């Protein structure tokens, strides 16, 4: 295996991580001795068949769940030693999540949705308003969306709002689980282009996807099968969604 980017520091590192789910006596090994590193400014894709453990892996990288065994090192800290509150603070300051179903709150305006991660930071309103606008501009959103409800926007627009929410707190890493899973190809392209743009600006981006055309937009593809990382591939830019749609 060729080690890329060895000069950079690992932002998140999984060492021999196992994750079991127990449901009524039935044990599922979702991750089996996974060793995985995400480096600063990485742009990586994780691919694999359904049920292979992609989301579970993302949960580990995103500090959403604790490993059954093994070690997770985030920004130099062993996270198993951290309390729930400290994990929440890390998620708030260092991580941004993008979900397949957007997970926007429809009773709140677009503005309030993007603002949501800033509330636990206890920032004053005017500063938050600036940060919200900045984030929306970065994802190519329009100011008139701010007053609307998320369900008044198209799927692609909603996902861009969701990305704005993920980056508004200026996190180091953006973790996206099937961000294009619910979108048509054109919308998928703008969303991926947005993520690539954010990566260029310095954000680390991890994308879980089924779609090879999406994976080919990244710099590195990991393939996971039955809870084990089985390979690491270089993407083929010619087969990327962005390239293909530009040709059409």
């Amino acid at each position, binding site marked *: 295996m060729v080690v890329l980017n060895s000069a950079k520091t690992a932002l998140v590192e999984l060492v021999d991580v196992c994750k079991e789910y127990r449901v009524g006596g039935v044990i599922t090994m979702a991750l089996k001795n996974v060793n995985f590193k995400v480096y600063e400014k990485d742009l990586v894709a994780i691919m694999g068949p359904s049920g292979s453990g992609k*989301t579970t892996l*993302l*949960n580990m990288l*995103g500090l*959403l*769940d604790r490993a059954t065994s093994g070690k997770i090192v985030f920004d130099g800290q062993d996270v198993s030693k951290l309390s*729930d*509150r400290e994990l*929440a*603070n*890390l*998620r*708030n*300051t260092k*991580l941004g*999540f993008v*979900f*397949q*179903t957007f*997970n926007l*709150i429809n*009773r*709140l305006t677009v503005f*309030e949705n993007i603002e*949501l*991660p800033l*509330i*636990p930071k*206890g*920032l*004053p*309103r005017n500063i938050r308003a600036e940060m919200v606008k900045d984030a929306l501009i970065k994802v190519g959103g329009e100011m008139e969306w701010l007053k609307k409800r998320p369900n008044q926007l198209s799927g692609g627009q909603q996902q861009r709002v969701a990305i704005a*929410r993920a980056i508004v*707190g200026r996190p180091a890493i953006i973790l996206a*689980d099937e961000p294009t899973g619910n979108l048509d190809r054109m919308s998928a392209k703008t969303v991926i282009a947005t993520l690539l743009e954010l990566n260029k600006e310095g954000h680390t981006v991890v994308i879980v996807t089924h779609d090879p055309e999406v994976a080919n937009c990244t710099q590195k593809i990991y393939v996971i099968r039955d809870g084990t990382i089985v390979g690491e591939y270089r993407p083929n830019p010619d087969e990327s969604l962005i390239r293909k749609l530009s040709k059409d």
Partner: protein
Amino acid sequence: MNPYMILDFIRLSLKALSERRVRALLTTVGISIGPLVLVMMSSVVGGYSDYIVEKVTSLGQNAIAIFPNENYKISDEDLQFVRSIPEVAKAEPFYSIQGVLKRGTEEIKVSIFAVDYTLLFEAIGSLKISEGKIPSETEVLYSIVGRKIAFKDSGERCFTLNDVLTIDVPRIEGGKITGKKSLNIILGAILEEYGGALIVDPDSTIFLSPEAGRRLLGMRDWSGIFVLARDPSFVRTIVSTLRSKYEDRLRVIAFSAIAETISSVTSAIDFINFSTSLSAFAVAVAGTAATMITAVMERTREIGVMKAIGYTNSQILFMVLLESIMMSLIGGLVGISLGVFGAHILSSRGLSIRGIELTFVANPKITSNLIVQTMLLTISVGLVGGALPAYRASKIPPVVALRYE
């Protein structure tokens, strides 16, 4: 947590409530019943109790009334005995009877009370003359009348000083009522409005001198003896002296004892009322808990997303708890306002005491203490009802944000 955050959490809670406003409204209505009942009943009962106690005490802390029971006649000897008790300052017999007064075209029921005027004004401290003067001993035909006799309820005047009043009273011969007779007396003075009372209701009473009682009413037997103690602290001694001598031949009523009885009765009513409204509060707790637990379950994913975004367990707990507290705050405000409103309506209808034929109106007793206690109790409904749902919400794992079903 800084002030910005608290305001933001309040805003988030209000938004969440407004999304399910029908449910929130119904729950709030449910919460408002407890404070409504508590404020309304407590203030009405408190108002009447205070009113009665005040009136009774104004009748004189040191006043005692003695009435004969059936088959007993009060004699001069009895009067002398009462006067001989060292603690007694004054004792005068009185006559009382019901009559019908012709006033223009209408006939109204009046009480006639013949008693020593000095004793009367001494015993009922707040009794004041508004027109005329107290008739002298020789002016047997002159009377003092209550406000409601000289004036209609509308304030329209019916009689002026020196008018002749014609009253029908029962004719009494040998202690038996044998018919009716008409009586003419002169209006010598009009009292200021007194506002209802017990045993005597000065506003609709015609007061006469004892001499007039004997001569005009033709009553040979006294209706009772009015006693003043030298000091309120002697009342008990006098009452027990009289009771041990006369046992059940005389009824001895000390006004201060009435006040005590009323106070203890109303505190019992208050306690019952409090316990009853507690059940309303308990139901409200259950209702709040039910509403909140459904709200939390419906928002499992949303709360998971908030967790993923970096909200801590205690922030989620606080946010959900704020929702139920908000409902209880609104429920409390609405309930207390309606309770105050209802208390005024309820007490404006007046309280009728059967037997004495007396209706009086007392303002509800709304104290800041009652309001604050009720509000705290109502807020605790939100706290207790919201506790379990808020705890459940705080334990929702952040991974649910990434689950797709």
